[in-house]
């Protein structure tokens, strides 16, 4: 006696959260059954393994059918085939678009292309996340990217509107899309200590301050294919950043800047002498990062540069976080007192964001 066909269809679609998780995690039906058996469900319910097998198959089939709709979550809300209470719909979507920290760190900043998709095998081996789950997560990133890529307006709002994600998750996706679009390098060994949260934090600051959308400048001609407001960095701004070079190129200006910072921080900084010794190096580092951002290649290496030029030197001198904060605040503020420097606005736009990012990046 073999079961040829075995289905259960409810007027309200039954969703088992545990099985959904197993399905999202990419387990095969037999693995999922084994895991459920291990969870002790048979003892709790008095069911048999056959019942569990049938139940798991059934849920997997339902999820498989729902997957098509989950690719465009508003469809899930309007479709008529599955009657699902709104709270359950939200849960289905949120869980489907949730991702693993380990996975996202592997692909963050990479081009969401077929090439990367081929590497998923390795990522799966490395992270211990099933290939199936890796594919789902990768496809989710790619799908969100594709949908919002051409859209204007707030990235987070667009994502929320088209994928009905929670605010938190939509922000994470905005970061992922932003990183993928600008191809920031995040995989280098010296960046391994950084979490997705660190990058997402930086991405949010950059979206808020360094993109076209940030300045609130609506393009004059709405039909012109201008840069996406939230996804691309403001090219003009990046060009202008070259002007900051004067801060380190002009020796007088550099000395003045240093003395202003030193005067203000004397006695307040535990690592004052180290700061004083390193000031010119640090300043050169920060200003050169800005000046280089006209080249795409250097934009990609932004985080590598920041870590190399600022985080690492400070860390080797054991600066406490608070000293870093005091220094960066003073370092940015002092520029306003440099009479010969004309790009105060530009400096604030650059340094305001950079200061936030550096503080977030500065940890072990």
């Amino acid at each position, binding site marked *: 006696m073999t079961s040829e066909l075995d289905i259960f269809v409810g007027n309200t679609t039954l969703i088992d959260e545990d099985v959904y998780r197993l399905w999202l995690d990419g387990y095969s039906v037999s693995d999922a059954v084994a895991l459920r058996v291990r969870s002790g469900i048979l003892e709790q*319910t008095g069911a048999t393994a056959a019942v569990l097998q049938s139940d798991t198959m059934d849920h997997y089939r339902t999820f498989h059918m729902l997957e098509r709709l989950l690719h465009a979550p508003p469809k899930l809300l309007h479709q008529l085939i599955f009657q699902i209470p709104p709270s359950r719909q939200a849960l289905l979507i949120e869980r489907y678009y949730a991702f693993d920290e380990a996975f996202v760190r592997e692909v963050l900043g990479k081009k969401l292309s077929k090439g990367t998709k081929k590497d998923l095998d390795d990522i799966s081996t490395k992270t211990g996340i099933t290939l199936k789950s890796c594919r789902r997560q990768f496809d989710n990133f790619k799908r969100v990217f594709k949908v919002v890529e051409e859209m204007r307006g707030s990235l987070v709002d667009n994502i929320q509107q088209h994928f009905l994600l929670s605010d938190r998750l939509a922000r994470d996706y905005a970061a992922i899309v932003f990183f993928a679009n600008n191809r920031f390098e995040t995989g280098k060994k010296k960046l391994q200590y950084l979490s997705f949260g660190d990058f997402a934090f930086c991405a949010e600051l950059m979206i808020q301050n360094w993109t076209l959308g940030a300045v609130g400048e609506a393009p004059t001609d709405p039909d012109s294919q201008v840069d996406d407001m939230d996804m691309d960095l403001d090219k003009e701004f990046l060009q202008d950043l070259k002007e900051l070079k004067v801060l380190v190129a002009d020796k007088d200006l550099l000395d003045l800047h240093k003395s202003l910072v030193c005067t203000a921080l004397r006695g307040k900084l535990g690592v004052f002498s180290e700061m004083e010794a390193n000031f010119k190096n640090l300043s050169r580092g920060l200003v050169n990062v800005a000046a280089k951002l006209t080249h795409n290649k250097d934009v990609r290496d932004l985080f590598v540069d920041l870590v190399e030029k600022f985080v690492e030197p400070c860390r080797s001198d054991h600066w406490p976080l608070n000293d870093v904060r005091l220094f960066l605040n003073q370092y940015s503020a002092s520029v306003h007192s440099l009479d010969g420097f004309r790009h105060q606005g530009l400096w604030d736009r650059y340094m305001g964001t950079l200061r936030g990012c550096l503080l977030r990046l500065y940890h072990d």
Partner: protein
Amino acid sequence: MPGKLKVKIVAGRHLPVMDRASDLTDAFVEVKFGNTTFKTDVYLKSLNPQWNSEWFKFEVDDEDLQDEPLQITVLDHDTYSANDAIGKVYIDIDPLLYSEAATVISGWFPIYDTIHGIRGEINVVVKVDLFNDLNRFRQSSCGVKFFCTTSIPKCYRAVIIHGFVEELVVNEDPEYQWIDRIRTPRASNEARQRLISLMSGELQRKIGLKVLEMRGNAVVGYLQCFDLEGESGLVVRAIGTACTLDKLSSPAAFLPACNSPSKDMKEIPFNEDPNPNTHSSGPSTPLKNQTYSFSPSKSYSRQSSSSDTDLSLTPKTGMGSGSAGKEGGPFKALLRQQTQSALEQREFPFFTLTAFPPGFLVHVGGVVSARSVKLLDRIHNPDEPETRDAWWAEIRQEIKSHAKALGCHAVVGYSESTSICEEVCILSACGTAAVLNPRFLQDGTMEGCLEQRLEENLPTGCGFCHIPYDELNMPFPAHLTYCYSCRKQKVPDVLFTTIDLPTDATVIGKGCLIQARLCRLKKKAQAEANATAISNLLPFMEYEMHTQLMNKLKLKGMNALFGLRIQITVGENMLMGLASATGVYLAALPTPGGIQIAGKTPNDGSYEQHISHMQKKINDTIAKNKELYEINPPEISEEIIGSPIPEPRQRSRLLRSQSESSDEVTELDLSHGKKDAFVLEIDDTDAMEDVHSLLTDVPPPSGFYSCNTEIMPGINNWTSEIQMFTSVRVIRLSSLNLTNQALNKNFNDLCENLLKSLYFKLRSMIPCCLCHVNFTVSLPEDELIQVTVTAVAITFDKNQALQTTKTHAEKSLQRASTDNEELLQFPLELCSDSLPSHPFPPAKEHLESASSNSGIPAAQRATSVDYSSFADRCSSWIELIKLKAQTIRRGSIKTTVTVEKASPMGEGNFRNRSAPPCANSTVGVVKMTPLSFIPGAKITKYLGIINMFFIRETTSLREEGGVSGFLHAFIAEVFAMVRAHVAALGGNAVVSYIMKQCVFMENPNKNQAQCLINVSGDAVVFVRESDLEVVPTQQPSANCQPSCTEGEVTT
């Protein structure tokens, strides 16, 4: 030109991509009704087109309005080649044809394609303007309401229940026409869907005409079925119960008795529509000019169309005299006479209802059933479906005579079904013989005083159990005892019925689903030989299923079955039988004896030991079940039992019943050779098998209950969460040397595993009850068994449940004592009652043979019947069933309405208004339930019948997830389309939902599969009771209200 149909196509959404190049679609819509077609403009390059069309107007006959579906086709425009069809929507506009129902159909409908399934949605608005029709020869029956619900719909009152209506239409099946060889599967499927839609429209119209002729205005318990006879054609048949219904405007309008309306009827019976509420297009005008003979059924059969078979063999008895009797005995006779007169004018006194207005059901006799095996042949002239009609007429006649043999004039809970395999067809009819109260029936001859007398006479909810037949003249052997509730009338030891548990019945403990499952192999054979083989097997199957049911019932410690449904399915090489029912313990019936096992060779020591081991296991199970289902019947003291019985013979029997109740205490020791114990003889391996299978049925996990009736006896505090579902399983048998035992085991496992899966899946709803569990078995191929289950899981409040059961038990105790007091107060009445039953000796024999399950001799006789004359196989077969029907039990006299009993039910139902409001009561949610009600809610409007037929086919089975993926998606789509239609009618639920057919065929080698599904139900609007709280006078469900009001009348 009595009707104008107006259609507007608003928009589409989620359309499929039809143009690969642009990833878009150029969609337009064709709207077709009858032979007229309109088209919208093409909406270019969009998956969400906004047509916003003008109103397309069709001017049509109301006959067409009833028959034809509105057909909406969405297409993709293609400049160079033929336009591609995206899909279709069929809209049944019938709900718009009666004024009380929906006024507009408006909403999003899934666009359905038989090959691709649902492909997007379309927003449509449909309206109908009806004009008055003065044509007296008209063929339409607009305005007759149809209900699938098998009880009087909740917001209506039955003025008159007229009786049985039936009709069938036949046609060639498009799938088998020559043209099918050259057309695409899609075209063929669509032709079939359209034809069936047309045929059901026509059928409904014809039934409506019959109802109008009977002067009714509604059909309740409407059941329409398809017989896919293959080569020989397609039969669509329907049965129902014609009624005159009155809409309840307010709870106050709920009149206590039906006196006044029936009087009205008498005075002006033929001049006016009985229903004062009918709208202008109602049937009054044409009827006025016709002269009706006094017997309405006569005129009805004379006038009616081809389908009627005039077999009125019934003698014309005069109308009941109407004089009221003072004593119970004469009164009973009078009652019977009157009922008889009312019913015997009818060709078939059948009622498809399973629940009745209080007082309608007087006595229940027992289950009557008839089956006949037929060979199908081509239907030559679709307009003259005489053979099919004659077949059914034969069977109905048989049922009628069975009922008569049980001393009953009517059959309630009546249903018909078929099972077809190749050219063999088994026709089955089944119902419950009953004696009805004539006051609801057509002639209003009941006198007021008589009614009052009737009501005075009804102390408890046991009346329906009392035997209707003469105990001197019992049609079959049975144990009789005095009723355990009233002590006045005789009751059988076991009662089987096809109806729902009457609301006023006193039940102890909870009920449970009981199933008998059986397979029998048969040789493959052709035509007549095959039919003969099947005919020969049938009586054995019925007998064995009956024995199984009886055993399982006893094992549960219960004494009555409700909602019994026996299905026999024929396949190429086997027959399958599945009987489902809900077992309960009726307080009025005696405590069932245990099951005693007797070995054949008593001298073998080890064998003895084995037997006693089994015996112990059985006894343990019974004890456990009694605990599980809370069956603790009140102890009855000897003095109460003994005193009123003057006759020695009776005393001895009562002593027996007393010893039974002492069994209750010891519980384990049931095997001591008491004559009422049920003896199972283990004389061969078969019997051994039976005993084993008895014990393998696992009870549902704790927190779960199941039943196949509307509600679970013993639970009445439902909370609002419901989950309707359909589950389908197909197993493939290993073809090698199949034996009956292996087959039985497979089938048993299949059903048990299915139930276990359901319990597991629905575990989050605990405590809950699976209600209306409906199993359907089919044998799609040689080695395949398909089981389809539809049911609804309803949650209930456990704490409250305990409380109510407690008070319940207390109440029944109380009642028992008050009853007994009453009993002592009226000894005279009792004597007069029992007087005619004096000469006992003949009954004795019967009683004795009954103790070893009376069915055995019947079956033996069955084998000896000669089947040589094949042409006559039906009638001889029915002889068998007659014998068979006799082994099934019944009950007796005295109509009953218990005030006490009715109120806890009513209160219980409505106490849980405090239940938390349903979480998913957002807009757009459509509930579906096989029940006639929605727990915690009140149905405010019936919007019309939903009757839909779909075909789905695939040629890429693997790609769609195999057979399971294919069918899962299809059933989900069917649900979606039902919900969409209900929502478009303005409803938020479907009640009395039923999946009547789910025919699944696969050909995995060709990567193909096809499935046909037919569903129906009543679209309704319901309001949560929590939202109704403001209204102080809650109107409880129609079932409860009348009993309460009647209670007031009695006091």
